[in-house]
């Protein structure tokens, strides 16, 4: 009897603990494994869609990547000149390296001006109450943009120009 009760109590304790563990994981949603200058597995195991990625890339309230970067196949009126051109970026960097750079560039260059689009809100100073506990992009949206940049092959520039 006592034996059985003990098992029950331990089970309950485990259940409660695992509940806590889960809610902690949910709160710090930016859990990912960094290997060198890469994140090898897709965030939350999600698959990106290049078409959505392109829209997020241009959207001023989302990626807003054109604020700083150029991408010559996009015909938007203004491209920023703060960061490098992203033409052929998939030739220079692997998918895993691009994933880390979008997720949190400051892991690669602590002085970078590039925002960490999936940087933990805990590492942000004085975030506006409007954006409390949120990241600029969701893990799905990061994966969408990663897949968009990976879908740009060198000859896709030649074709579209």
């Amino acid at each position: 009897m006592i034996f059985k009760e003990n098992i029950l109590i331990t089970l309950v304790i485990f259940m409660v603990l695992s509940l806590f563990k889960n809610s902690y994981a949910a709160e710090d949603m930016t859990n990912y494994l960094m290997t060198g200058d890469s994140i090898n597995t897709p965030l939350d195991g999600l698959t990106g869609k290049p078409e959505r990625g392109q829209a997020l890339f241009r959207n001023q309230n989302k990626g807003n990547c054109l604020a700083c970067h150029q991408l010559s196949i996009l015909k938007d009126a203004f491209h920023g000149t703060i960061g490098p051109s992203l033409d052929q970026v998939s030739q220079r960097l692997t998918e895993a390296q691009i994933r880390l750079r979008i997720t949190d560039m400051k892991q690669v260059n602590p002085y970078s001006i590039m925002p960490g689009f999936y940087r933990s809100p805990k590492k942000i100073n004085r975030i506006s109450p409007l954006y409390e506990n949120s990241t600029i992009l969701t893990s799905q949206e990061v994966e969408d943009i990663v897949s968009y940049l990976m879908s740009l092959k060198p000859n896709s520039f030649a074709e579209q120009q």
Partner: protein
Amino acid sequence: MITLRAFRYSFLNLVFLFTLFPSTPLRAELISGYEFLSNQAKDMQNDDFQNPGYLMIEKGLEVYNTRGENEKSCNHCHGNNGEKFTPKSIAQFPKFHNLLQAPVTLRDQIQFCWDKRLDNFPLLYDDTDLLALETMIRNKAYGEKVNVDTSGEMQPYYEAGKKFYFTRFGQMDMNCSQCHDVYTGRMLRGQKLSQGQTNGFPLFRLESQKMVNLPQRLRECFHSLRAQTFEQDSNEFRNLEIYLNARGNGLKIETPAIRY
């Protein structure tokens, strides 16, 4: 040989320092935000009739001549239309106030006089009367070089403002220096980054079609960084104003300027 080696090492050190802190070692040449305007916007600034800032100055003169609770107006001490203001002194704000034993911005000084010398109910920070008075008085120093003291009693406040300037804020996680020192002259989408100088304030913004003072502009910066802002009369913004103005020491005052 030794000197040659020392030279080579110090050169390498410099290169290393530049890559780590691209903006710190040598101060860039000062450039007013005016230089970043289109010709059309420059013309607008220079034409008293086109520049909406002059309407604000007229309003400022009206407030200047309005009698306070004690029947005095500003001209009781500062002469008709502010003729007794000296441009050199106006160009020194923010400066140390001996009575208050603290630094005061030009706005703080105006509020101090309004309250203590005219015996009026204190002006709120967003009050148009305050904006109008500041525009009118700062304009008295038009063409004078900004000259903020950063030594002695002012030094700790200046240092605090400088620290703030290099602190990253908000979800965008950027500091002021990244845009206004490191990437000056580059394009942020369609907008060329200026040095973020303050010699034109209060100024008319083409984007919002409004006159703004510096703290009002800073609040917009914080909004675009998705950061929690500070109060307009907070010590943080006051210290930042000391640093920003001093950073532009030598630039000519352009109030009322036109900017994007």
